[in-house]
């Protein structure tokens, strides 16, 4: 187990730069999730830590040792691949013991490490099977077993649950979290699924366009997204955004919408009057009924637990999530209002605006 330091990491393929200087410190035993849409550079960063991609610029340190020029095998890390990358011609036991056998570990130690990992993952009955005779979830477990028998300094996960169906993904997600609790190993987990990120991470690193957008605990990112990207990416259904202009008012700051109506803000901001801003509010924080503004109902999606209302507010799409079943009979129009304490304010560059 070890800490991992990433210092001003750049990565280019030819003239195309895909990582524009990433800094990140991962503490010993921490579970870090790199999350972002496809092509944001999260997998590239993980593969650079693993040693599968060359570092164009900057330094990677594992346990305070610079590893830029070390081969993957000398970095003492283990990786779980999206495709599992199991050796098809080896049995489950051989797959799990391959790294130990390469290191010329004594036979008894190999056997005990494999059986310990197998019983932890519930793989005992399958040790002599080939990967092709296993289900997706079992293969996933073998891939994890292959990583944990080594007791490496760090675990790297590259979208390990993407090939599983939804139910199994949920189950394995919980198992990974439990396993991390037991082993306490430093882990870096790449995913594009914000639910996986929220549920697994000690800290989330949200990435977009090769730049780290925000680093923080899951609830940090949910409650105080640093910019429009994080605000829109974290949370499902995604946050609503409304273009507005800031009005300081006389002790009652507000935002003026395009139709001229005002939305009360929780406090004053260090902004010039009439500055264009983007208001953000999560669908689950919108209040339905009572005093408020009218919106046309376009679509109602019941999810069982709650209901997603697709509205048209001033002609723009707007989503509301509620567990109140009365909205199922909402008809053509609904009245909505925005509780000020749940409003997020972003400036024209998309950065979060803090209170004065």
């Amino acid at each position: 187990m070890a800490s991992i330091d990433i210092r001003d990491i750049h990565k280019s393929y030819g003239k195309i730069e895909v990582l524009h200087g990433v800094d990140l410190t991962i503490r010993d035993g921490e579970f870090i999730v790199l999350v972002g849409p496809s092509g944001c550079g999260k997998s590239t960063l993980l593969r650079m830590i693993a040693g599968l991609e060359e570092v164009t610029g900057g330094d990677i340190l594992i346990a305070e040792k610079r590893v830029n020029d070390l081969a993957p095998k000398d970095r003492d890390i283990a990786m779980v691949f999206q495709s599992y990358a199991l050796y098809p011609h080896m049995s489950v036991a051989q797959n799990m013991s391959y790294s130990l056998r390469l290191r010329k570990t004594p036979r008894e130690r190999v056997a005990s490490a494999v059986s310990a990992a197998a019983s932890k993952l519930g793989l005992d009955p399958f040790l002599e099977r080939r990967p092709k005779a296993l289900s997706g979830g079992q293969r996933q477990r073998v891939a994890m077993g292959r990583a944990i028998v080594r007791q490496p300094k760090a675990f790297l996960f590259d979208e390990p649950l993407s090939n599983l169906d939804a139910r199994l993904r949920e189950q394995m997600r919980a198992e990974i979290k439990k396993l991390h609790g037991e082993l306490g190993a430093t882990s870096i987990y790449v995913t594009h699924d914000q639910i996986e990120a929220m549920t697994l991470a000690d800290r989330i690193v949200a990435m977009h366009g090769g730049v780290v957008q925000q680093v923080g605990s899951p609830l940090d990112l949910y409650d105080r997204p640093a910019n429009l990207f994080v605000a829109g990416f974290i949370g499902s259904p995604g946050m609503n955004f409304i273009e507005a202009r800031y009005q300081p008012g006389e002790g009652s700051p507000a935002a003026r919408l395009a139709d001229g109506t005002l939305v009360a803000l929780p406090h004053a901001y260090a902004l010039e009057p009439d500055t264009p801003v983007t208001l953000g509010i999560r669908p689950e924080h919108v209040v339905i009924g009572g005093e408020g503004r009218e919106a046309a109902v376009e679509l109602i999606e019941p999810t069982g637990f709650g209901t997603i209302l697709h509205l048209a507010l001033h002609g723009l799409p707007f989503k509301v999530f509620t567990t109140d079943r009365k909205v199922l009979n909402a008809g053509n129009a609904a009245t909505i209002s925005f509780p000020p304490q749940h409003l997020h304010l972003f400036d024209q560059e998309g950065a979060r605006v803090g209170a004065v």
Partner: protein
Amino acid sequence: MATTVIAEQPPGRKSLMQRFARGWEPYLYSAPALILIVTVMLVPLVVGISYAFRDVQILNPFSGGFIGLDHFRALAGDRAFLVALKNTVWWTGASVLLQFAFGLILALLLDKPFTGRGLAQALVFLPWAVPTFLTGLNWAWLFNPVIGPLPHWLHALGILSEPNNILSDPELAMWGPIIANVWWGIPFFAITLLAALQAIPRDLYEAASIDGAGPVQRFLSITLPFLAPTIAITILLRTVWISNFADLIVVMTKGGPADRTQIVASYIFTQAFTRLDFGYASAVAMVLLVLLLVYSMLIVVLRQTLLNKD
């Protein structure tokens, strides 16, 4: 319509002609194709095999009679045939192994990305496109010290004591056709092995390199197991083809000097088209056919047992 007609007639009351037509209908439909296949494939085979038991000499108008196993008795005591048999093993073994070894090396090189790889892959395939007859002539000239550079180069390197034509040296002659054959046959192995190499998932290599495997261990524990089925089938195919493959030898050495490069296939060619003894040539060909069948059966059985073990 047809069903209603049948329904009106009680079963068992159909005329003989109708029952005959009904029974034979499927065979009649497939007859044209079957007749074509039989005439094109089986008839020549049977006629060819029948030659082995007949005295067929083109220049002897009184030949053609049935002589039983006489050809095979003569064959058993034919020293030239035994030499050809030994040469065949040597020619086939050396050619296949060298083609495979160089083909594998080439495939591994072409599997790595580099600029101009597409062009290199196309160029590698080129020898395969050269007619074997031209390949033979070309290499015969290359080995000829009067017009070809190879003997002089080999002499300069100290491999040959004199810049002589190795095709006329009884000790070295077999190397001439083997080298030509290797040059011509490498692309087959290179291309098939390259295709198999590119079908290996990349992340297996990445997983192995993280697991601690070096290049040699990755080759042994991932590349070879993945290539094994392709290697087995290509070597089997090439062995059969090359042991039947007389073009290069006929063009380059005509089996000489002193039968040192005579393989069974070229011996058949010599018997049939130089001595014009088609009967004897056919008998030799039958022996070769049986030997290759036995070899193929052995490989198939081996493959099955290996597959069943999995």
